[in-house]
Each structure stands twice: as C-alpha cells, then as structure tokens.
C-alpha cells in the first residue's frame, strides 16, 4: 500500500493512474476525430497494461 498525504494508492492503482492519464493525453494530442481518439486511448491504455504486467511477470523469477 502506498501511503501518501493526499492519496492512498496501491502499486497497481498508481500504475493504472499513470497509464490512464498518459493514454488520454496521447489520444487527444495524436488524433483529431473523436472516434479515432477513443480507439487510440483504449489501444494505448491496453498496451501500457500489457507491457507493464508482462515486464512484472518477467522479473518475478528474479525477485528473491
């Protein structure tokens, strides 16, 4: 658990917050039409999660 002054976030929640904020910003900056933005945001968010969880699992054998 991440204990903070204003937030109490788990590692995964911090990861989700980061992925969501960056995906939305990339979507709005990189695409113009709303439909394209939504597709880009969802795809970017999915890739953030997939790569992050993938790297976490890849490091798991070396965590001890």
């Amino acid at each position, binding site marked *: 658990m*991440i*204990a*903070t*002054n*204003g937030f109490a976030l788990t590692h995964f929640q*911090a990861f989700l917050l*980061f992925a969501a904020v960056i995906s*939305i*910003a990339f979507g709005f*900056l990189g695409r113009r039409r709303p439909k394209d933005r939504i597709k880009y945001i969802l795809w970017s968010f999915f890739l953030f999660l997939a790569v992050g969880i993938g790297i976490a699992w890849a490091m798991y054998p070396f965590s001890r």
Partner: protein
Amino acid sequence: MADEVIQQPQQETPAQPPDTGVRRERLAWAIGIAGWLLPGLGHALQRMWGRAVVVFLAVGLLVVAGATMRGNVFSSNGGDAFDTLGYIADLGTGSFYLAARALERDGADVSHADGDYGTRFLATAGVLNLLAALHAYEAARGRKA
C-alpha cells in the same frame, strides 16, 4: 521604327509581404513558450479547447499526485548528472514546477515506493508538457493539427 511592345512577364501569384513567414515563426515560438509556461495555454491560444483542457488536467494531475506522494522535485544544485536530468524534466512543467515545490513542504521521501513513483510522475508531467508545447508550436506553424 516599328512599334515594339516589350512584354513584361506577368506574375502568376500575388506577392506576399516578405515578413509574413518571419511573423508566423515568431508567433509559433511565442505559442510554444506559452504552452510550456502554462500547460495547455499553447493550444488554448489556437482555440484547440479539448487539447488545452486535457493537457492542463493531465500535467496538473501528475504534478499534484507526484508532489503529494513526496516525489523528488529536483533543484538546480543537483549533485550529479541524473539530478540535472531530473531538474530539466521537472522544469518542463513550467509554472507548475513552482506549484510542486509549494505542495511538497515536508520534502521528498524516496525511501519508500510512493516517493519513487511520485518522482516518476513529476518527471513524466514535465516531459508530457514539453511534448504538448512542441505540438502547439508545430500546429501554429501549420505543420500539424
């Protein structure tokens, strides 16, 4: 002597004032710097309201989260190259850098994971704002929208 008509070559395109390009370039630089100083302002000046709001909120949220998680807000008197890089990244948030320093009254605490995440959030906010300012600059030059 026969009348000779000297034909002048006609211009096919109307002449443009020579300083139009220079003026546009200066305006683009001003918009880029404004976008750096206040996240989203570069897009707001070009009436790109959606992008302006999203950039402002995204950078602001990352700065507030990073500072309240007690991430490291780097200063100019860093000890090594990584501190200098962190300082440059944090400066990317423009005026929000001062807000981050004001929010973090107790100083950084990177001995725990939350402080480490906070440091990353702050650096990401700076780099994201620099990217947005560059986007606003390019849009003002008419190269991207």
